[in-house]
């Protein structure tokens, strides 16, 4: 679609206007970092954030979500159909959300996810610089995005170029922002900024993300898994912070008299001991090594194969930041790659 | 009429910790009259030795689940004086705010849930909920407010989290303070009704002259820091606390006894009232008038009435502190960093049950070399026994059941926190 321009000074009014009609969720300051939160004031938004502890997937798949409530034998499904705008999504996270869309629509579509997705408008952001030494989006080809968003913002000095991705995005812009069609000069600046940005992102992974499935295919028996397994806590942090993880547990909560309550799902982690244990007590992934292998297989191979065109890792680096014993995708994959060089 | 009586209350109920009452009268003569502390000894001072000073407040708050904020505060003050740490104004305001939260929490628990059942002649708050549901719901409401106030500042009431040497690891937001202020204002109605309720209670008429000891400060009704002040005219610097407490071991009690110049003294809400009543918030003074409380009051049963008065004070002071914090705005402050130089310090505060001292010696490696804690209930034990000895002969003719009831009520009025009081000997290092 078309390319529009919003002046920097018109951005806050745009956010404030949207807040009049939508729940607007954007990056805000959180202690020493950032998190996605519902804005109560437009000035809270921090579009220049580096990254968040938890990815914005929580907007589409909340950390905890009621599936239905019950009163004696009466069941009532719970859907969240609030109209919302998810603002300031980095492109790595956007790629991840496109993968989630596929995963939840596949087979029997997950009605709860689908409804929330249908009422969410995504305004993404182009990163012009790296967040820290952990991200490797360049290798995973998620450094930019040409689809998946409704609107996409690229900051160019005193104004934002706005790529319009969908009619919903177009309407959002038309109804809430002061914008104009990009001029030739503005397009030229966009061109310049975009072509200059690549060199600012170092290459950290010694192979292209596209080649990961092949590498993982020959790495099943690598001694590396035992090695990293010795260090791993099995703390699950890496899963919880990952934008492409979506496993969940299902639990029931009841009232004191046991007559009413709800069934809800909550984010889960394949690194936890219980994750694959069954009724007889058998655990199909007993050790940290087995569980780590599963996680990296999923990130590097299974998802790419199950959902062609998508990736199980988008290179955001969150898991590397979270892991206290330095078990990172870049480290693991570079090391496997070296073994098979 | 010659009276024989043997009373043996095994584990006084509705008090924190384990205590037994023993009375033995032959031919109208009191032969034995004791409050035995049978709580297991806990050895906190010994446990602190060799541990980083940063752990002290977290470990010692585990002395008591009811006055955990109080122990944490005294512990932090001891470390702060030992290390020469100055608190910011904001940190002082927050320390006071969470302290008021605990005073309120503990006093609601004691007056409504532990003492009130005696007046309604029931065994606990559960049947009380049947006869006076409004009062019980009000108590739960006020307790929730107090707990939430503590949680806002310290993370939770029992064993606060965010209190640390030099300040706080986490700060409440202005929005949270505003919401809390509104709830405190709403609570005034519950407080008025509380005063009205306790005004009607038939407090036992018993008086005995004794010495009352509390902290005092020139400019406020003291809860944290101050000068040790007694109704007998004693004034001591905190460093001289041993001149007041004079702890000694007593065989029938795993808690030590204390005495100043007389055989015993009293600490707690009534002592604070007797020493500092002029500094109470005007609304609290009104409540005192309504409850018929006048300094110096020598009826120990009225300790519970003094607690009601302090509840009013704490609510009003909390509102004031919230106002001040909201006006100043909350600022992030740098955490204290240990400079490699130890020292010795005393921390004192007026926890709900009275005067509490922590005294630490910290080495240059940041580890605790010596520790001593003196707990309010320990200081009250000798006084409780003196009261018992004075009271029993006066009522001996009323029969076993009534005497037992009056004694249990007396012990309860002191709001004893027996598990805290169980500790240990002077280690001379100040």
């Amino acid at each position: 679609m078309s390319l529009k321009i919003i002046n920097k000074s018109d951005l806050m009014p745009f956010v404030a206007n949207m807040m009049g009609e939508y729940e607007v969720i954007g990056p805000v300051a959180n202690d020493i970092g950032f998190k996605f939160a519902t804005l109560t004031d437009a000035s809270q938004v921090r579009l220049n954030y580096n990254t968040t502890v938890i990815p914005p997937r929580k907007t589409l798949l909340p950390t905890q979500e009621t599936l239905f409530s019950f009163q004696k034998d009466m069941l009532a499904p719970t859907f969240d159909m609030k109209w919302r705008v998810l603002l300031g999504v980095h492109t790595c996270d956007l790629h991840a959300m496109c993968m989630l869309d596929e995963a939840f629509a596949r087979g029997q579509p997950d009605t709860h996810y689908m409804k929330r997705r249908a009422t969410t408008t995504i305004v993404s952001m182009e990163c012009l610089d790296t967040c820290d030494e952990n991200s490797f989006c360049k290798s995973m080809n998620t450094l930019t995005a040409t689809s998946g968003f409704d609107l996409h913002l690229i900051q160019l000095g005193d104004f934002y170029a706005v790529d319009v991705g969908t009619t919903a995005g177009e309407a959002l812009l038309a109804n809430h922002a002061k914008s104009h069609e990009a001029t030739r000069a503005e397009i030229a600046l966009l061109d310049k900024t975009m072509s200059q940005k690549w060199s600012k992102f170092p290459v950290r992974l010694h192979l292209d993300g596209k080649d990961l499935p092949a590498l993982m295919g020959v790495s099943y028996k690598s001694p590396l898994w035992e090695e990293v397994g010795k260090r791993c806590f099995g703390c699950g942090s890496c899963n919880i912070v990952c934008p492409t993880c979506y496993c969940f547990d299902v639990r029931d909560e009841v009232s004191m008299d046991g007559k009413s309550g709800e069934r809800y799902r909550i984010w889960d982690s394949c690194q936890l001991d219980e994750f694959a244990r069954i009724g007889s007590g058998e655990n199909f992934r007993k050790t940290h090594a087995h569980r780590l292998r599963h996680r990296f297989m999923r990130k590097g191979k299974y998802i790419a194969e199950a959902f062609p065109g998508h990736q199980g890792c988008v290179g955001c680096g969150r898991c590397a930041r979270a892991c206290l014993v330095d078990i990172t995708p870049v480290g693991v994959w570079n090391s496997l790659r070296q073994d098979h060089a | 009429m010659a009276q024989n009586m043997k009373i043996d209350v095994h584990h006084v109920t509705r008090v924190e910790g384990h205590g037994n009452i023993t009375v033995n009268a032959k031919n109208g003569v009191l032969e034995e009259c004791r409050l035995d502390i049978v709580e297991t000894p806990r050895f906190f001072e010994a446990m602190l030795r060799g541990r980083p000073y940063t752990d002290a407040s977290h470990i010692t708050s585990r002395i008591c689940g009811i006055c955990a904020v109080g122990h944490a505060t005294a512990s932090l003050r001891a470390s702060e004086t030992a290390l020469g740490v100055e608190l910011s104004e904001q940190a002082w305001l927050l320390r006071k705010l969470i302290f008021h939260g605990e005073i309120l929490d503990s006093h609601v628990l004691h007056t409504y849930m532990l003492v009130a059942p005696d007046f309604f002649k029931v065994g606990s708050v559960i049947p009380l909920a049947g006869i006076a549901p409004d009062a019980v719901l009000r108590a739960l409401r006020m307790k929730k407010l107090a707990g939430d106030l503590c949680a806002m500042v310290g993370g939770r009431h029992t064993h606060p989290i965010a209190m640390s040497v030099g300040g706080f690891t986490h700060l409440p937001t202005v929005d949270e303070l505003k919401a809390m202020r509104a709830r405190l204002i709403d609570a005034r109605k519950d407080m008025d009704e509380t005063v009205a309720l306790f005004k009607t209670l038939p407090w036992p008429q018993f008086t005995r002259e004794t010495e009352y000891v509390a902290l005092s400060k020139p400019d406020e009704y003291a809860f944290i820091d101050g000068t040790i002040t007694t109704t007998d005219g004693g004034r001591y610097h905190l460093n001289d606390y041993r001149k007041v407490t004079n702890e000694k071991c007593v065989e029938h009690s795993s808690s030590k006894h204390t005495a100043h110049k007389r055989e015993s003294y009293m600490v707690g809400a009534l002592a604070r009232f007797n020493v500092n009543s002029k500094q109470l918030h005007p609304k609290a003074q009104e409540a005192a008038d309504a409850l018929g409380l006048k300094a110096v009051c020598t009826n120990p049963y009225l300790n519970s009435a003094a607690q009601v008065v302090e509840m009013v004070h704490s609510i009003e002071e909390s509102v004031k502190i919230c106002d001040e914090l909201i006006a100043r705005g909350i600022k992030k402050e740098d955490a204290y960093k240990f400079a490699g130089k130890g020292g010795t310090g005393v921390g004192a505060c007026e926890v709900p049950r009275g005067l509490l001292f922590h005294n630490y010696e910290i080495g240059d490696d940041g580890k605790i070399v010596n520790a001593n804690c003196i707990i309010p209930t320990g200081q009250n034990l000798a006084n409780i026994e003196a009261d018992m000895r004075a009271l029993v002969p006066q009522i001996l003719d009323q029969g076993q059941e009534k005497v037992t009831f009056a004694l249990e009520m007396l012990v309860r009025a002191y709001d004893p926190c027996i598990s805290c009081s169980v500790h240990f000997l002077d280690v001379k290092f100040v």
Partner: protein
Amino acid sequence: MSIPAIESIYLPTLAWISKVETMTATEKFYTVELPRGQSLGHKPGQFVQISLNGIGEAPISISSSPSRSNGKFEMCVRKVGDVTTALHNLGEGAQIGVRGPYGRGFPVEQFEGRDILVAAGGLSLAPVRSVINQIFDHRKKYDRFIILYGAKNPGELLFKEEREEWKKRSDVEFLETVDKGTPEWTGNVGVITTLFPKITVNPRNTVAITEGPPIMYRFVLMELLGKGIPEDQIWVSLERRMKCGVGKCGHCQLDHFYCCQHGPSFNYAEIKGVMEAL
């Protein structure tokens, strides 16, 4: 299947327990009735999610064959945890929730004209019974029919009456064994693989179906392959932890397969290279 706009895929349908029978010390057998005589519409080898409000859900195999459904289905439940214990405490007439059927069953139509060999261990006779009865009800469509069944001890053998009947039938070769006998037990003693020398098969025309605890099916697979049955004629049903039953929650993933979607019935050729499967 398309989802009506306002339905939750996690919302169970209410059903009733119309019959409960105690099978062993730890297993009970249930007949479940669906509302309005609705049929479950399942294939042999599929499972349902049984739901109890406030307790939770558990995947349970359907034990009855589609050929004998008419508004009811059967299941056998072993008491191991929260849901299964709560189920054991329910009596006839009690309401339960059902979602499904889910998963891939055994493609019995493809087996027509073949010899069928079923090897089941322990509780697994319950799910496999859905295939067995389907075959009995269309017996003419299949050639030879062999059933091998093993359990830890005689007390754990399920479906006593049906087994008696199978023993009498001439159109099935039924052999059973127990790992450890009792004084009363007069039959075979030994693990299920000790039954294999007692049968002869035509490997080229045999379809084998096996299900049981992991330790059992690993050995059975070795026997089947040892007899020369082609890999793509061997079917195995796997159990994994499951929370959703619809391929979302991730618990049942084994390598790139979701057990609840691609299984629980797998073709051996398909999964033999899947490291975590067997």
